[in-house]
């Protein structure tokens, strides 16, 4: 188990969200869409230019930009 930034995650890699360090609108949006502490996420794919990223979370697909994923810390199994 190790901590990593969501941007660093590879396609098909799964992990558990440890923290989301951003307030304001972005923080709010991320949480509204179900990205909260302890939730499991899987990277489903990336756009052709590597950004944004598509995640599988709570049974649906969510996409966010890499600079938004930067605020999310994930615990992944090696």
């Amino acid at each position, binding site marked *: 188990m190790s901590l990593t930034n969501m941007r660093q995650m590879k396609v098909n890699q799964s992990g558990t969200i440890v*923290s*989301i360090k951003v*307030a304001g*609108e*972005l*923080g*709010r*949006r*991320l*949480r*509204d*869409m*179900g990205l*909260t*502490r*302890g*939730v*499991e996420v*899987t990277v*489903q*794919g990336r*756009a*052709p*230019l*590597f*950004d*944004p990223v*598509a995640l*599988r979370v*709570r*049974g*649906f*697909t*969510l*996409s*966010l*930009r890499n600079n*938004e994923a930067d605020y999310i810390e994930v615990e992944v199994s090696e």
Partner: protein
Amino acid sequence: MEKPMKKKSIALAGNPNSGKTTLFNELTGARQHVGNYPGVTVEKKEGYLTHNGSELHIVDLPGTYSLTAYSEDEVVARDWLTESRPVGVINIVDAANLERNLYLTVQLLEMKLPICVSLNMIDAAKIRGITIDADKLSNLLGIPVVPTIARTGKGKNKLMDKVLKLSRDKRGNNAFKISYGDDLDNALMEMETIIRKADLLTENWPARWIGVKYLENDAHVIEKGDKVNLEVSEQLKAITQKVARHLDATLDTYPEALIADYRYGYISGILKQGVVQRRKDANRLQLSDKVDKIVTNRILGPLIMIAVVYGLYHFTFTYSEIPISWFERFFEILNGFVSDRSPDGLFKSLVTSGIIDGVGGVLGFVPLIMFMFFGIALLEDSGYLARVAFMLDRVFSAFGLHGSSVMAFIVSGGIAGGCAVPGVMATRTLKSRRERLATLLTVPFMNCGAKLPVMALLIGAFFAENQATMMLIITLISWGGALLTAKLLRSTVIQGPSTPFVMELPPYRLPTLKGLFIHTWERTWQYIKKAGTVILGISVLLWALMTFPQLPLSQLEIFNQQKAVVMQAASPAVTQELETEALVFSAETAMLRRKLATLDGQEAEAALRYSVAGRIGIVLEPVSQLAGFDWRTNIALVGGFAAKEVVISTLGTAYSLGNVDPEAADSLSDTLKNAPGWSPLVALSLIIFTIFYAPCFITVVCIAREAGSWKWGAFSVIFNTTLAFTLAVAVFQIGTAGGFLGG
């Protein structure tokens, strides 16, 4: 007119992609209309339904994931629920995506609204191996839950029965309460006491909800609280600050985040009590995900996207040509009919050139708009548009735009030959305000179908050897110019951080035809109703600018005398032949006809020069010479404000050529090539100016409507023209100094 006030109001609330609008269409059918919420550009859809003898007013609230103060949609939905006090709220949730959908449900419950859940798309959920115990969910939430399939209408009667019962009982689940953990619960208890005692906003909202909003730092609620009772509001803020400091120190989190955690925790808790049965793993790849593996693939994705975008473009502009030609034919016939039956003069000119051309101009866009909205609705409802935004966001966000901006650019003429009117309207798929505004203001730089004949004329006359290369260069200049201008606007007048992208990629779905048709028709009707009247008015105004003041009688007399001299010089046989409608004339008669036509052309040129538009052109000449334009070009560009292809016909008139057909402007092309004051450099300068200067006024009207303010319409005229002139002057002056292109 039906009066909505007297009827019971029912609201539809739910996440985007939950089938909300499909259910709305199923309930109200054709008895609906679209307007705007006061002061904002958010669409308001309302309709009527008679159920068991009760006449109901149904409002389709904007689709939202939450009820925060961050987005216009959410504020509108929340305010409407607060102010209109609906007798019932139907909360549509996607059964296959229950966990996230219930997040909104929980917030609606906290507002103590009378809610009935429509557990939608149970068929799609079943295919994904998900079954839901609706009764159990209903018991746990304390509100009615009715399984539905909106696309077929299944369950809608039972749903309405429950909603009506709810409205008769006049209550929701008033006991609903989520625990947010000891720290926040204690803070909330303290806040509730203060709020109740001071009666702060309690006529609008439940006390605990207000407390939660203070903890969440909700700008709107706090602002209202400050206004009503600043002292109490400050007390509440102090409690928030205290608990926030405590949470930061002990749990390394803050109230807003903790509240979301607990809400999702509450939902998970409910779902774990046997509400959801899964035969398959929730995160297993579904059919939709497999499609995505191909459709958003690094190599295949962009190729498929180009094909789809090109397909949309082809669909919009090729198939709409047929109905457009019917419209054009109809207005031609009407014009001919009026021309034949009314005497020459001002009235005829007003009716044919002002009114009929104006109405024709408005309606001529209708097929285009219909086809465009149909195509985009198809892409949007099927879920593909979200993928386009996903794939292109990296490029567009670099310029301060959004992945979804691409559709508007393409439709406007990103592939040469589009139209900015439907393009501007296509920005509605953009949810983020700043990105949308920047898109709105830059799409007119694309090469629309009306600019093309102007480009073709200039390229044909001055760059005949490199036609294809020039067209490519023009396309690149307009794209480059649009994106760089977007960046400029986003770092100046539309400054601000980019709106979070955070976007759902909904599962692919087959859109319903009913939904597509209703959607298309609504948008088109809005265009006709709102834009139509303004456009007609401006069309008449432009006609007047190019007609008045008329040539003084003394000058008209000179032309008449010249014509008379020409006529007298001809033999009687020739003048007689002139009256006939022969297809081929004898050489002498043909000569006479040419002479007369030349005189008519000169008269039209003199009249144009004498009109307000002509005078503007002449007055501006000293300035416009900096870019190489003489007064004739100036008038043509003024005319281009009506529609870009008018540049050609006006240039034709200004060069005494009579009526020039934009599609076959050979004579004008030859004239320009040999006219003094023209050179390839002037042509290039004019091409640059044409790309960037003020959009045609129909586009301006649409920009003002979509941006919600005339300020932005005016901005696009002034800013674009200034930009265009600066660029054209730069091209002309550099070219002249360096001696390029014959300058």
